[in-house]
């Protein structure tokens, strides 16, 4: 409060302290803001430029929405008006930029555009620098409108570049004329393709050439600042050259210049040179030129003292790799990996794996590389990498034998990494037969080799090995008894892990009961994987958005469900998700599922086998949990809420949305609970209603607004009142938008406001029920559906659902005790609709017949639709 008073003081020092306080201590959400705004307004219109500057600084430093609304109109005027002092103009430009970032609409268009652009011609270099920043941001939003700035920027640039360092006086920094402004202008030009006008283009190229020439001149000062400033401009010029990508001559010169920097004494320059070269390598003109420096780059990867620089070198090697040098680069990277820093190992492993795959002409080479990779840096080989090698081996007949042989040899090492055991287990299980002819790798030997590793491995790997064994049973009948012994050992209490135990006993039974034919079908070779984007590439993209030189880099907004989340889950029938990271679903699931994933027809066979085994104890389907789908990471199931009122409506990594609701007659009240699961505040949090057109006038909804910030770990509640005016289908939704880490997120959630929520249960006896039932016999009033059960036909579960649905469950009325009948009244403001329902399960056929009769056709249909998906 006192600080606010200080703001309105006339004394400069008091005012200054007041502003300082505010910029340091007040955040954007404080209530004080409203007070401050008035004071700032006064200062802004003050005659004293110092006061105006203070006010502008304050606005820029706070830069909130309120500020943008309050001052959006004043600042542009200040910026272009003729009698504003330079200092103020400069501040105004940046202030406007800041407000523009918080709310895009504050920049006026039309005649302002040209006036803002012409600030580039201003006499005062400070103003030009500030204006360039502003225009840069505006151009990003609206490139067409600000096209005019290209030629102005180019001419300004050429004036600076050709100026001698004495011309610009104060703005010369260690003998370099206006380095910051040059950098800004060069950045600005990178927003556009090369200028079309040949005159402008020529001038620009001249400038760029001059900058490159200057780099060759002997330094005017020994000071590091001089070379820094000079090189800042140079690097920016090089990025522009790369961006334009049309002048092969300049590109090659740029590349040579960078090559010189690679062996420069300054670490900073080496770092930046490597970074820029990464970009250069992607241009077709300079790709070859970059390759000339391969030796030096490899050297800097190995010898550089600084890990940041080494990292850049690795990036560059990755970018410059092509068919001709792949083998050499991959080899060098592998060599280096043994001594590489821990922090960059994982990324390097990914990169090596990708390069090896991308440029492999000979897949035996690829297999060698990956196995080496696992040997050298097993801990850093993520699941995706070894999944991928298996995918490739399975898809290519020509390497299968070689792969089997190599892994077999690799496994003979006394200590080998668990990932190696996994790959080995998988590949031998599939293709062990290809090398079984050799005495040294007879089935017996293969099996014993794998089993010698068994005890050292984690349950996950053990499970995989068990699957390998059952595959061996199929491949090599001669060692069947041996394997059965192993299964026997593990099917009892000796294996503490339930999954292993179950697997062992199931496999044991399978090997005993099933005939050779059945075994051969069930344990057939895995089918080829469909070719998709490499999952490794996807991982790398996720890790380093913008670093992977591929065209379509999309940053994952929120991490989707990844394969390893589901590893322990029973399998989905087939990997149908198109999310790249679930690529290997079939693989990542413990191979117990392999038989069932192979083809659907096998499932039946398998079930029969287990059916015999557990004869009479229960439903056969449960022996092998084929039907349980792995729960997805972000759960959102609106259907579930048809039959219940409370629960978690939506959940992902960021947010959890719960709902509680109660209904009476045609009125309902919903409490929505938003919980922030992250450790950051969710900004601009805004849930808003979205009502489909056909619902307009049929339901009435009111929501209370909520606070725009959802603090980390906090939960807020939003109340929603609903009134049903007329019956409807479809449901209203909630659109929830917020900023997480400044990334806008948007969710659309269907509200659990289906028509059945307005049911009132009605009790009646059998006589009156059937009397009404007959009365409602007309085609218009009746709606019927016959559908297959999607869930086990369990009477209690069905009862619970029907009760949750909102109607009265009438017991003992239907002559068939298996059938369910219900009655209820739908309340709307305009009318009440009586509704009767009958659900007839047919256990043999696993089908239901659902009949709904009501006095209104649309109601019967909707109720029937809603309920049909539930069983």
């Amino acid at each position: 409060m006192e600080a606010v008073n200080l703001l309105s003081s006339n004394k400069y020092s008091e005012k200054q302290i007041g502003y300082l306080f505010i910029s340091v201590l007040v955040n954007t959400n404080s209530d004080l803001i409203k007070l401050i705004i008035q004071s700032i307004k006064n200062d802004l219109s003050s005659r004293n430029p110092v006061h105006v500057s203070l006010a502008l600084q304050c606005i820029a430093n706070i830069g909130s929405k309120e500020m943008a609304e309050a001052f959006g109109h004043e600042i542009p005027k200040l910026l272009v008006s003729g009698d504003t002092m330079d200092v103020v103009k400069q501040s105004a430009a940046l202030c406007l930029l800041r407000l523009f970032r918080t709310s895009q609409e504050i920049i006026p268009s039309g005649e302002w555009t040209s006036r803002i652009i012409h600030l580039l011609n201003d006499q005062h270099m400070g103003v030009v620098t500030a204006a360039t920043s502003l225009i840069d941001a505006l151009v990003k939003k609206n490139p067409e409108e600000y096209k005019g700035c290209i030629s102005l920027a180019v001419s300004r640039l050429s004036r600076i570049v050709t100026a001698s360092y004495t011309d610009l006086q104060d703005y010369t920094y260690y003998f370099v004329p206006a380095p910051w402004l040059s950098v800004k202008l060069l950045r600005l030009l990178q927003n556009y393709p090369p200028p079309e006008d040949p005159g402008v283009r020529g001038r620009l190229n001249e400038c760029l050439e001059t900058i490159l020439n200057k780099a060759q001149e002997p330094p005017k000062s020994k000071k590091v600042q001089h070379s820094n400033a000079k090189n800042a401009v140079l690097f920016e010029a090089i990025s522009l050259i790369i961006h334009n990508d049309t002048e092969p001559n300049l590109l090659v010169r740029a590349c040579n210049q960078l090559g010189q920097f690679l062996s420069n004494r300054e670490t900073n320059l080496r770092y930046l040179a490597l970074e820029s070269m990464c970009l250069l390598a992607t241009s077709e003109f300079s790709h070859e030129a970059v390759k000339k420096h391969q030796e030096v780059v490899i050297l800097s990867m190995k010898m550089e003292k600084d890990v940041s620089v080494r990292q850049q070198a690795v990036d560059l090697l990755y970018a410059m790799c092509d068919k001709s040098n792949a083998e050499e680069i991959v080899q060098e990277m592998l060599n280096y990996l043994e001594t590489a820093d821990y922090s960059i190992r994982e990324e390097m492993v990914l990169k090596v794996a990708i390069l090896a795959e991308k440029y492999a002409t000979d897949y035996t080479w690829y297999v060698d590389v990956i196995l080496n990779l696992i040997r050298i840096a097993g801990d850093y080989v993520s699941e995706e990498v070894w999944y991928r090698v298996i995918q490739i081996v399975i898809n290519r007949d020509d390497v299968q034998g070689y792969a089997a042989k190599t892994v077999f040899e690799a496994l003979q090492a006394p200590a080998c990494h668990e990932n190696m055991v996994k790959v080995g287990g998988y590949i031998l299980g599939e293709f062990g037969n290809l090398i079984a002819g050799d005495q040294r790798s007879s089935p017996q030997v293969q099996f014993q080799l794998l089993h010698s590793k068994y005890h050292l491995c984690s349950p996950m790997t053990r499970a995989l090995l068990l699957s390998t064994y059952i595959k061996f049973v199929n491949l090599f009948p001669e060692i069947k008894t041996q394997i059965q012994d192993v299964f026997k050992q593990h099917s009892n209490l000796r294996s503490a892990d339930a999954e292993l135990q179950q697997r062992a006993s199931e496999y044991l039974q399978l090997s005993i009961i099933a005939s050779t034919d059945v075994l051969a079908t069930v344990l057939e070779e895995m089918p080829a994987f469909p070719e998709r984007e490499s999952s490794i590439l996807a991982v790398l993209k996720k890790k380093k958005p913008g670093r992977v030189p591929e065209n379509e880099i999309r940053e994952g907004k929120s991490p989707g469900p990844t394969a390893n989340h589901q590893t322990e889950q029973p399998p989905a029938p087939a990997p149908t998700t198109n999310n790249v990271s679930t690529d290997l679903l079939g693989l990542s699931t413990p191979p117990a599922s392999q038989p069932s994933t192979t083809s659907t027809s096998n499932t039946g066979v398998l079930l029969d086998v287990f059916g015999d085994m557990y004869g009479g104890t229960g439903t056969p389907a449960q022996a092998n949990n084929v039907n349980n789908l792995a729960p997805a990471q972000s759960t959102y199931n609106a259907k579930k809420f048809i039959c219940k009122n409370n629960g978690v409506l939506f959940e992902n990594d960021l947010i959890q949305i719960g709902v509680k609701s109660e209904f009476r007659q045609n009125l309902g009240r919903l409490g929505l609970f938003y919980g922030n699961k992250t450790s950051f505040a969710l900004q601009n949090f805004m849930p808003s209603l979205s009502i489909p057109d056909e619902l307009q006038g049929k339901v009435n909804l009111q929501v209370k607004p909520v606070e725009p910030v959802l603090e980390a770990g906090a939960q807020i509640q939003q109340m929603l009142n609903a009134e049903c005016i007329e019956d409807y289908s479809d449901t209203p939704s909630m659109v929830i938008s917020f900023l997480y880490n400044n990334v806008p997120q948007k969710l659309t959630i269907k509200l659990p406001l289906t028509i059945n929520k307005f049911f009132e249960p009605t009790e009646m006896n059998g006589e009156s029920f059937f009397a009404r039932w007959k009365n409602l016999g007309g085609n218009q009033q009746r709606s019927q559906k016959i559908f297959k059960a999607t869930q086990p036909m369990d009477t209690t579960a069905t009862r619970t659902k029907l009760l949750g649905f909102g109607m009265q469950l009438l017991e003992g009325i239907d002559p068939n005790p298996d059938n369910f009948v219900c009655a209820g009244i739908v309340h709307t403001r305009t009318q009440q609709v009586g509704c009767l329902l009958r659900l007839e399960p047919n256990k043999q056929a696993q089908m239901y017949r659902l009949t709904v009769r009501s006095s209104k056709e649309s109601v019967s249909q909707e109720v029937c639709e809603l309920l049909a998906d539930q069983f």
Partner: protein
Amino acid sequence: MIKAILVFNNHGKPRMSKFYQYFNEDMQQQIIKETFQLVSKRDDNVCNFLEGGSLIGGSDYKLIYRHYATLYFVFCVDSSESELGILDLIQVFVETLDKCFENVCELDLIFHVDKVHYILNELVMGGMVLETNMTEILTRIEDQNKLEKQEAGLAAAPARAVSAVKNMNIPQQIKDMKLPDLPQAIKDLKF
């Protein structure tokens, strides 16, 4: 854009921090701590750029720092800034401080926080580079000093302000505040 400017000493004690993107207090402390850990591990002869801070902005985030005697000056920026440009900006900042305080040292930053902030305000505004010309900055700072001196009760004014800051209890005041009454309150309080 510049996301934050941090100055801390060799032991990680913050001497000045300025955030141009909103973070709550805890987060700010965490960022300073993390940045210190990243920066202090590095030798003096390695490069001045560093990626890998996890707290601000994710992957589009670089630390650019310089180490002067006992102090680290760290600028946290995104990719729209030129690395060497920022490096020179740090140099300008430090040289300006040096001119204003005549041989600046850590103690100057502790005892004249306000002045440091004023200088920074002339240099960077709302995360954007405002002025890079040292003479220009110096004249502005001098102008400000002159203005301060011209005003009567020079000694009293800052002291009063400081005591005002100390004495108030912000959360409580905000709670007590009734928004409708405010315009009047301001009128009454005029000096």
